Structure formats: C-alpha cells, structure tokens
C-alpha cells in the first residue's frame, strides 16, 4: 500500500469523489465521510466495494453503551462477562460515554422522569446509532403496564431496531439480538 500525501491534490480529489460516492451509496443514513472513507475509496477504486467495506467494519464493531436501567441490566452485565464472551463478535467492552457507542441497549422500565435523560443520551451518541429494546418493560411496559409512571415501550421515544422479549431475556438473547442488528447493518435483512 502506497503512502498517501494528505495535503496533495490527489488526496483532495479522492476525498471529493468519495464524498459523493458515500452520500449516494448510503442514502437516508446519517453519515459524515471522513479520511478513512476517502482512503478506502482510493484503495478499492469502487463505490460498491467501499460501501461493503464500510458496512463490514461497522457491522463488526458494534459497541454497546454502559447504560442499565433496571433488572435487565443484571443480564446486560452478565452479557459483558466471561460466560457469554461477547467480544468475539465485536461487541467490545461497554463504554461509559455515549459518544463512543454504536448501540444503546435499553434494559429496564422507562419512567416518565427518565425520558428526557434517555433522549439526551441518544442525541449524544454518534451516528449511525442503533437501539435495542431489551426485555418486556422496554418493549411494552411489561408487568408495569398499569403503573402511572411508566411509559409503555421505549419505541414511543426512540426508533428501535431490535426488540427482545423475555422477563428478563437471557444474555444469549441479547447476543442473538445483536447478531440480528449486525445483519441489519450489513443489509442482509430488511427493517
């Protein structure tokens, strides 16, 4: 691989070309092309391959956020521990800040006082971002459907990509859900 002159004319042209390519290839997705993408385009010289590579890299580095609300967070912790070994599929350690995360796993019931906080966290995540609704409470209110302080599903507030049923779902279910999310990112399954 040849070294790239980042100040040269060549790079700027490639970058410009890539901007157009990426915007065209990933319509509807919020995405800012950057240096890596430009480099990718330069190496591959093909929009389709570049798109695939971007998707592939995105697909295989799904980083969840360390954000537990209630009971399901216990299973979330178990998901991060040795038995499930989530890292082998690219779900790296749980990150403490939303800015480093790709996926928010909403684990637990959502109270009215938590809605603004969750919204803010979601806004702080960098695009593209995904939401997994983990467990009955986050999906539909669960056993608290008659409670005065619970909203019946996180999908009233955020766009949800994958739902997981169970009270609480086993850590393996989260694994399955993230594999599904990966397929979704890779374009293997439709929304």
């Amino acid at each position: 691989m040849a070294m790239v002159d980042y100040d040269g004319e060549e790079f700027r042209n490639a970058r410009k070309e890539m901007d157009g390519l990426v915007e065209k290839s990933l319509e509807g997705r919020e995405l800012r092309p950057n240096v890596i993408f430009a480099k990718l385009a330069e190496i591959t010289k093909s929009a389709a391959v570049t798109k695939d590579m971007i998707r592939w890299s995105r697909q295989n580095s799904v980083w969840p956020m360390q954000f537990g609300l209630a009971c399901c967070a216990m299973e979330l912790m178990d998901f991060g521990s040795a038995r499930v070994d989530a890292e082998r599929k690219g779900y790296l350690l749980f990150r403490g800040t939303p800015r480093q995360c790709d996926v928010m796993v909403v684990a637990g019931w959502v109270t009215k006082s938590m809605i603004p906080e969750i919204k803010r966290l979601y806004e702080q995540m960098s695009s593209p971002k995904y939401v997994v609704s983990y467990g009955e409470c986050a999906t539909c209110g669960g056993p608290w459907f008659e409670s005065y302080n619970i909203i019946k599903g996180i999908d009233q507030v955020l766009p949800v990509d994958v739902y997981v049923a169970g009270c609480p779902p086993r850590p393996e279910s989260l694994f399955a859900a993230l594999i599904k999310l990966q397929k979704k990112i890779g374009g293997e399954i439709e929304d």
Partner: protein
Amino acid sequence: MAITRINIGPVHPSTHGVLRLVVDLDGDMIERVETHIGFLHRGVEKLVETRMYMQSPAYMEKLDYVAPLSYDEAYVAVVEKALGIEVKERAQYARVILLELQRIASHLLWLGTMCNDLGQMFTVFMWSFKDRDMVLKLLEEASGNRMFYVNVRLGGLQRELPPDFEAQTLEVMDYMEKRTAEYERYIERNPVFMERMKGVGVLSSKDAKDLGVTGPVLRASGVEYDVRKNNPYYVYENLHFSMKSQEKGDNFSRYRVRIMEIKESIRLIREAFGRMPASGDMAGMPIRLRSPEPVNKVSKLSRELPRGECLMYMVADPQKPYRLSIRSPSFINLAALSHIAKGQRLADLFAILGSLDLVMGCVDR
C-alpha cells in the same frame, strides 16, 4: 474557598442504576452530597393493592433484582402470616437453602462491581460473574428461571427440589469455598484495592444506629444485629448460625463482612442439607383464583435480605392486600451516603457508594 457544585448521573457507569448525585466540593473534598432519587419509581405498593395475593410475588422480585428471591420470600411470608398458613418443615429448610444461595449470588455480584468501580479490576468482575452464574444455574434448576424465580408458594415451594439438587449444590459449594479463599488472597494483596478501601468512608457505630442502616453496612460498624440471629425465622434457630461483624466501619470492613457472609452461607447450606428431613412434602398451595380468608388484619415481619433488614407491613383484605408497606434496606442505607461521604475526597465517593451495595429498584420502588 469557593464551593464547586458538580452533577453526577442519573446515568453514570458507577452509580449502579439511575441515581443522581449533586456534590458540593471544596477543592477535592466533599462538603455535601445531595441524592436525587425516583428515576425508577413505578408505584409497586399501589399496584400490589390491585392484585390478588399470589399475583404479586412477580412484582416483589423486581424490587431488588440482584436478590429477587429474598423479596419474593418476604412477601409470601407476610401473606402466610396474614392468612394463617404454616410452612412445612421440609419447605422451611428448602427456603433457607435457596435464600442463602441467593445471598451468595448477590454478594458475588457486589464484589465484582465493587472491584470494577475501584479502577478497572476487571479480573474480579469476570471471576465473580462466572461463579455467580453457577449459583444462578442451581436456582434455575430449582425454579425454572434464571433470574426471576417466583418459586415460593403459600406454605412451601412451587415444587420439590430436583433429585440431584443436593449433590450439585454441595459440589458448587466446595468449589465456592476454594474460590472465596482465592478472592481473599487476590484482592487483599492488591494495593489499589487496599488503598481505596482501608480507612475510607468510616461510619461509626453510633452514627450507624442513628441513621438506621442495616445489613452488612451496620455489622461492619461493630453493631451486632442480624434478623437471622436476633429475631430468627424458619430454621435459622436450629442451624448454628454465627453473625459476622467488624469493628472499624470503613469500606474494607464492609467488604470483609460480605466475604465472611459468603463463607457462612456456604456453611449454612451444607448444614441445612444435613438436617433437612428426608421424608415429607415441600410443595405449597398451587396458585388458585381464590385464596383463603385472612386471619390477621394487620401483619408485619422482618427479613434479613443481602442488603439489610426488610420490613413488610400488610393490612389484609379478602383476596388482596388493602395496603402493603415495605421498608427497603437500600433506601435507608442510601441516606447514610451523604453522612459518610462528607469530608472525603471526590474520588472516594464511588468507593463509598459501591460499598453500601444499593439497588435502585429497591430504593425507588
């Protein structure tokens, strides 16, 4: 010097749930900690009033999701008291075994997250979760679910323990005993752990009594109080239960109490299996639409949960509770936080918070 006010939470990696803290700092020293709770409030006590007696255990388990079975059992016990139902002897032993297993699982989770809070001692987290999983597997064998068991029925348990449960449990207990020694060896030689635990967050025994804290936090301050000993229930009287306490009341004492409680629980489980009557029935009443009429209008009882003393107070109506009031240990222990943290460094705040072992679901109800 000027006071700096910083906000922590409600979503923070170290608050173990959704807790918001507003901290006033003088330099690096904490002047005042204000706790804002209620981010998980869902009105359990009110919901229970609209449910039949035996529909509620599922709600109770979600109060303290680190040790669900303990709350489940406490609630069913207060209903048994109200309805005047005796618990079969074999079922009493089985309940004690399951409760102690739950205590081990809860303390192991605490140990893992605590070490994680103290600067990424991730090894302990991995170890303790692996061990906790073995205990959860036993509870799953006994009840059918991994985390929420809803296993306790009026007068007994949902069903007989599986035939090879005893052998399996004793095997795991042997393993756990070795592991506990290993934890001690590993943790207590770690300078990071010792620096941040020893002498930090001291709660004197007088303050502990005044603030009303219970459980390991109280016993770490040198007050000998354990419901299992002072007001024994089930077969704790027959078992040779010895209370574990420490003198100093700092973070390290709280850790020591929990580690010793794990060992004591292992011993209790072994003893309970030895004394459990071989014959007899442990199945309780199946869940029916109508439960028996209540005998006592007002009934209350206290239980030693992994986090402290839980008091259940129930005013009974036919078929459903008129009012259920819960004294949750986490809520009372949280109140001690601002007291302990005053005058400590900001970096120690999470060590103190972690050592109190709070579950926010139990605080907010």
